[in-house]
């Protein structure tokens, strides 16, 4: 994975050096518009670690291998994680844009397939009174429920991310620490990545004109903090940590449980590990 990401970056930088030489000649004569494009492209060729704001000065992304765990047996569907994520990451407060969400699976007596909904369902929005507030409506009151559980979902930060594969300009990329990031200053807004993600984890931010998704709160984890959703979860259903540290919560979670990943048949190799989900979820 690391090697792939680094070689891809190297190849791009090599290409950019060539372009840069040609651009240096062209830029002298170019008008302000084209020149700014060339500047942007040249800036893109600078190694990430040397960029002023990337992302925390003393953070070394080669020293970490982040992963995420979800213990669905613990989730109570309170949706505090969704709210925290929206606030922390400035996610549009609509029912159509989520970096993380929670799914509810309910098996009623006599039915083979679960009834599934999430906080964006109109019935749930009606119960909360606003699409800016999140609640699961008590819609199965009176029904005979055989089995029910909640499943938090988020970007899987795949080892082989389809979104990174299809991005035509390399605006979305996989860091050495395993997190898939998006350069909002470089994204052209084609939405190919939104289409390619098998998990529906990406959305398009209409106001910014770029794609967006969960980054495991990259601005927090690079400072030694937990992602906002993990921080607020009252029951410890969300687990986060560094797999390079064998005693980290996530290493213990993976080691001590029989974990599963979503849609393994895609070959994406997700890095969000699940416990306590059944076949309808995968």
């Amino acid at each position: 994975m690391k090697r792939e990401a680094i070689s891809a970056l190297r190849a791009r930088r090599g290409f950019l050096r060539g372009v840069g030489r040609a651009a240096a000649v062209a830029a002298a004569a170019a008008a302000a518009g084209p020149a700014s494009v060339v500047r942007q492209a040249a800036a893109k060729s600078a190694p990430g670690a040397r960029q002023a704001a990337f992302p925390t000065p003393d953070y070394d992304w080669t020293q970490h291998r982040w992963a995420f765990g979800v213990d669905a047996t613990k989730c109570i569907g309170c949706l505090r994680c969704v709210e925290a994520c929206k606030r922390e990451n400035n996610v549009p407060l609509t029912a159509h844009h989520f970096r993380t969400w929670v799914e509810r699976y309910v098996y009623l007596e006599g039915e083979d397939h679960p009834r599934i909904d999430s906080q964006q369902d109109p019935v749930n929005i009606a119960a909360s009174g606003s699409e800016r507030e999140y609640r699961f409506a008590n819609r199965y009151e009176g029904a005979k429920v055989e089995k029910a559980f909640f499943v938090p979902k988020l970007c899987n930060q795949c080892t082989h991310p389809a979104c990174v594969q299809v991005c035509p300009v390399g605006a979305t990329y996989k860091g050495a620490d395993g997190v898939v990031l998006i350069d909002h200053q470089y994204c052209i807004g084609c939405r190919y990545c939104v289409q390619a993600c098998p998990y529906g984890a990406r959305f398009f931010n209409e106001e910014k004109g770029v794609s967006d998704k969960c980054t495991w709160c990259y601005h927090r984890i690079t400072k030694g903090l937990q992602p906002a959703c993990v921080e607020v979860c009252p029951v410890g259903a969300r687990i986060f940590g560094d797999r390079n540290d064998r005693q980290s919560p996530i290493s213990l979670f993976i080691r001590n449980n029989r974990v599963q990943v979503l849609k393994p048949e895609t070959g994406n190799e997700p890095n969000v590990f699940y416990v306590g989900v059944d076949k309808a979820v995968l």
Partner: protein
Amino acid sequence: MEPLIHYAPYTGWVYPNETVIEWSIAIVVYPYITGLVAGAFTVSSLYQVFGFQRLKPVAHLALLTSLCFMIFVPLPLLLHLGHPERALNNLLTPHWTSAMAMFGYFATFYIVLLMIETWFAFRPFIVEQAQTRKGLPGAAYRLLTLGSYDVSEAVLRHDRKWIFWLAIAGIPGAHGLHGYVGFVFGSLKSREWWSSDLMPVVFLFSAIISGVALLIVIYVVSCWLRRIAIDLACLKGLAYTVWGFIMVALVLEGLEFANIVYKGREGVEMIIAYVNGPLLIPYFILQFAVGAILPLMWLSYMIWRGTTGKALVAGVTVSACLVLLSVFMMRWNVVIGGQEISKTGKGLLAYHLQFFGHEGLLVAILLLLAPVATLFGLTRFFPPWEDKAA
């Protein structure tokens, strides 16, 4: 002012972020126009490379049609981008693993090729006009000669050689461009409706029939506008071309659908519910029955009966219009249809077509009319008609 976000109503279970259908009618128009380019170029190549003499009356028209539509291919994409001003990033820092990254190079290569081939094809006419016309048009033609006024037989033979090789290079160029569009969809594993190895060839053959059908319509209308007789042998040649390729297109599309149903992978129940429900009219009726099988049978009947004269013109033209509709519906059913089937395999969404807005119906219609208007203007400057051109 229409709202920024159009959420899609849904049934069943869909992921929350799916409730905005991101690829709109603009992305339907894009492969449609690209296909018309490839198809029109096929006709030009059938004459220039394969020597189909009966297509000579439309050979230059096909080239100009291809060029006019190709000029507008990037426009729907630019209208769709969240940051169109960053579109050049695609050329400056292409991400080689992305199918879409190749677009800029393919498109640029192909536009340049079309312009050079058009220049060679019209060079004798340009030289003649440069020597006889005065004023601004004369100056424009003189500029277009690029300083080369030699139209001796030896030089023209040399030109024809260039046209031949450019046409040969253009065949993989045009078809590669369109096959790649099919790959953009077919290579995605996120949607069962798209994820198919057959998608690039399905796109390619539907492109060929749409381009030839477009040429039939343009040729018939141009003859009518110019009040000249339609070359029936040429029209028949075009009809044979559509007839032959439509069978391949139908078989491929049928195979693709049969594969999805027969393999019956996860989510197939939703696909079957979808094609029997919301997609019944756009898919089975418009794309297959009215747009493909009806013209195929009609053309077969005319070929069998040896229909000629006005009945042939009417039959072929109506069949061509139906084929154009069919291919548009095919693009619609792929692009919009794919997004209406949820990635969960457990729900369906409904696309809401806007009328206004930069990705609305009005803009889509204008995008389809713009190349035709450009062609109308360009034929004044470079008459592709046999009686006037080189």
